[in-house]
């Protein structure tokens, strides 16, 4: 007789049941330990431990310097101002695109103009503002304004608003687009005027978007390093630049660490508030929804006129700012000697060749490694259940949520001694980019996996394919568009971002963006312009190539119509 099967534990070790997953998880945790936890803990250690004992001495010391306190307030005031003005401007643009009957080409132009600041290096608007409104500024001369200084709060504020309002525009237009047009009709049919409809329907329903935009812009401005460095001068200190100057100018690591801790606190608050906000409503469906649908009601006439006027002025201004850089790159000495010359480009391709090569290599490596990591992390956190999953999700976003300056300082502190001595290497630069900007990749992979029925993967397994084959033959082909979306974003950031990596460049490895910064601080505006133009062209070209590549890859399996991912599994 057989003994009836006793309840038999079916717990097995992960190593045996799914060795691939096991190795992936070990690799992910190891990489987190080295590139996320080690630097951050080193930063905290340096801030709070003096000779091995816990102490607030470092914080007290930076706090007692009046200049640093001013920098903290400066940062907060600036972030508040930018988040308000940027969100307002973004809302106006979003209304123009989603709620007016402006001619189609004009709307396309509006969209295009908002893309420019997103993919330009962070200095672009600062440089062009300097050219226009700085010493010998073109616009100042043209308008006959004297005694105006772009350096200080005003300059940073304008520049950051220009740089970040597109983020607000994207977030808000997404939510305005997904609103049901029938609500407008309902309000109007109930006798509401167009103003009243706007006030009682449109704006209240877009509040989550407004809230998210304010938080995003607050965080971005708080972390922005490039703009205040160029436009802040000594009149308007902010935390990221102060930390940078302390470290690179005075080699005061402890002071820098303490300052960046002051910056870390509000940044984390914003991060948590944003998670809270997004957790309750998943409205950020950044799908470019357009096409046939019921029309939204028209806005009040006067408002349409005002919106059109503001948008026109902004579009002209932004185009002017980019044109001015292009022009600036071709003149001998800006505003002094306006003869046409290729001199600056010659300089860029001669003395900047190393920077160009380094930047491309670093961006390429970071994009490839970052995308692979994003796919692995996105896949295991979306598809698998395991202990510590939440923590993995959270950790993966940490370097992204923190201001770049904080991450940069954490990296130099964490990697400037044994056992992991990486300062001055290619590895540290690539790691800084990868663990900061793969976040978007992870998100798009997760979002894409959520759309894909797990039954497809189960079907593959049940047909005898192993985990790895299923992953490469079924999962990857289905999420490849999302992977590419993440890659494009990653590449753009690796080419343009500077706040973290400014601390990590060396004689051996340098970046285009740092060359731009050097040119600016040496007041070589034309040279800086030429560098910027080259950078923008490279970014555009690379982006176009990636777009093409995606088209070619997916052409084979979305036939004949684009297979929409909603019908997957059907």
């Amino acid at each position, binding site marked *: 007789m057989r003994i*009836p*099967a*006793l*309840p*038999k*534990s*079916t717990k*097995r070790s992960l190593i045996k*049941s799914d060795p691939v997953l096991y190795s992936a998880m070990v690799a992910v945790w190891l990489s987190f330990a080295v590139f996320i936890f080690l630097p951050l803990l080193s930063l905290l250690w340096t801030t709070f431990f003096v000779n091995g004992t816990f102490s607030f001495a470092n914080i007290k010391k930076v706090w007692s310097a009046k200049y640093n306190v001013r920098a903290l307030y400066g940062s907060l005031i600036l972030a508040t101002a930018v988040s308000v003005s940027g969100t307002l401007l973004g809302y106006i643009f979003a209304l123009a695109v989603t709620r007016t009957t402006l001619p189609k080409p004009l709307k396309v132009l509006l969209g295009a103009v908002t893309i420019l600041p997103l993919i330009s290096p962070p200095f672009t608007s600062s440089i062009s503002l300097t050219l226009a409104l700085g010493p010998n500024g073109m616009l100042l001369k043209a308008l006959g304004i004297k005694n105006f200084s772009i350096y200080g709060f005003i300059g940073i504020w304008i520049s950051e608003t220009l740089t970040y309002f597109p983020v607000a525009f994207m977030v808000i237009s997404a939510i305005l687009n997904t609103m049901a047009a029938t609500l407008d009709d309902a309000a109007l049919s109930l006798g509401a005027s167009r103003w009243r409809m706007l006030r009682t329907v449109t704006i209240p329903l877009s509040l989550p978007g407004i809230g998210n935009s304010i938080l995003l812009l607050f965080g971005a401005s708080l972390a922005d390093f490039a703009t205040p460095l160029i436009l802040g001068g000594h009149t308007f200190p902010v935390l990221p630049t102060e930390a940078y100057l302390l470290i690179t100018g005075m080699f005061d690591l402890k002071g820098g660490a303490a300052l960046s801790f002051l910056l870390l606190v509000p940044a984390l608050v914003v991060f948590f508030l944003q998670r809270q906000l997004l957790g309750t409503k998943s409205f950020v469906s950044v799908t470019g929804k357009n096409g046939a649908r019921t029309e939204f009601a028209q806005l009040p006439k006067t408002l349409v006129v005002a919106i059109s006027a503001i948008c026109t002025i902004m579009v002209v201004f932004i185009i002017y700012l980019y044109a001015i850089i292009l022009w600036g790159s071709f003149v001998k000495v800006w505003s002094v000697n306006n003869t046409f010359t290729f001199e600056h480009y010659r300089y860029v391709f001669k003395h900047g060749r190393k920077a160009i090569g380094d930047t491309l290599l670093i961006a390429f490596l970071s994009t490839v490694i970052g995308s692979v990591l994003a796919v692995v992390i996105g896949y295991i956190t979306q598809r698998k259940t395991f202990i510590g999953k939440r923590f993995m999700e959270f950790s993966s976003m940490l370097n992204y949520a923190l201001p770049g300056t904080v991450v940069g300082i954490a990296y130099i502190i964490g990697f400037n001694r044994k056992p992991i001595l990486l300062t001055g290497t290619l590895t540290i630069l690539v790691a800084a980019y990868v663990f900061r900007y793969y976040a978007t990749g992870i998100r798009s992979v997760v979002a894409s996996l959520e759309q894909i*029925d797990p*039954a*497809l993967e*189960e*079907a*593959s*397994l*049940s*047909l*005898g*394919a*192993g*985990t790895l*084959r299923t992953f490469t*033959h*079924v999962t990857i*082909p*289905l999420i490849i568009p999302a992977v590419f979306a993440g890659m494009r974003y990653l590449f753009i950031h690796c080419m343009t971002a500077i706040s973290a990596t400014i601390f990590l460049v060396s004689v051996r490895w340098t970046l285009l963006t740092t060359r731009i910064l050097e040119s600016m601080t040496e007041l070589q505006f034309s040279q800086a312009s030429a560098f910027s133009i080259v950078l923008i062209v490279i970014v555009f070209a690379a982006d176009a190539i990636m777009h093409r590549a995606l088209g070619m890859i997916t052409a*084979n*399996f*979305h*036939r*004949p*119509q684009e*297979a929409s991912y909603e*019908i*997957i*599994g*059907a």
Partner: protein
Amino acid sequence: MKSSALELKQVSKTFTKDGQTVNAVQSVDLTVEQGELVTFLGPSGCGKTTTLRMVAGFELPTAGEITIQGKDMTNMPVNKRGIGFVFQNYALFPHMSVYGNVAYGLKARGERTRDIGEKVRSALKLVGLANTENRYPNQLSGGEQQRVALARVIVMEPNLLLMDEPLSNLDAKLRLHMRTEIRALQKKLGITCLYVTHDQSEALTMADRIVVMNKGRVEQVGTPFEIYSNPQSVFVADFIGQANIVELQIVLAEQETLTAQIPGGGTFKARALRPDHHVQGSELYRTGQSAALVIRPENILVQDPSSEDGTFPAHVRSSIYVGSHVEYELVLANGTAIKAMVPFSRGMHIYEQQEQVSLLFDATATAFLPL
């Protein structure tokens, strides 16, 4: 000794989600022989899918043992079990052509390209889809997608074919058609098949045997005939077909027969089901307690009121003439509602609302079940 195609021994599955535990499947025992088609039938959430997914290996049992052709499969990864699974939504790979879909498993198995081509074509022919090889899933109708899903699985010649409500996304007419087609194919290939459905008629017409599940447990396993005519519990009687359940008080419990009190009338004698539990000495039926009398609507005669022993006094709530039958809704003296379906013949009297009648239950088609 030849081993069974599939054996489940005390298989249980408990899910834990957000601190709550759900006993989705509890101590299921089942043996399936080679070439059988066994359907799983039961209300939503009773654990049919979970059981099937454990057999497939998508879920691991919390306890118990699963063997396929005598080999212990409890912890075997899905891809090593040699099973085929047909999903409710077909789960065709949208990025592969019909050919790619059907060839997928053969390629994974590392077969030669020439063999693959041959096998794929013959499988597609078998399901009536020759010449669709180069189409993509989104270019096929629902019924065609269903066939591709079937071809993709049978081309692998699995030990065991598992289907989870494979027809539920098709329209009613196609469903009837596919039902017979799947059954014919399964017989022709001699594949052992587990088939989940909550469509009774599907289960009754297709199955060699039916497993009726309720709340994670197996209520009864048997041929369609056994399940229908010899339900072993009130749940099965109620769930399969239409049945009237009348609660009666037992006045005499004898060997395999019970006599019970008719509300407002005499007594009624019928057989007691569950021969595995003898009446005497068992806890199932005891004098003075209640038992459930199960009677199907077609086994009731409606007559003029009489005081004959064994008849049930009742009044008519409604009567509908539907051509070949008269459908009655009746109410017993204790308030129990009864449905009766009486074959209509010429000159027959149709009782009107509120008329008093007397019901005669066909004792051979009636049985007591423990409550």
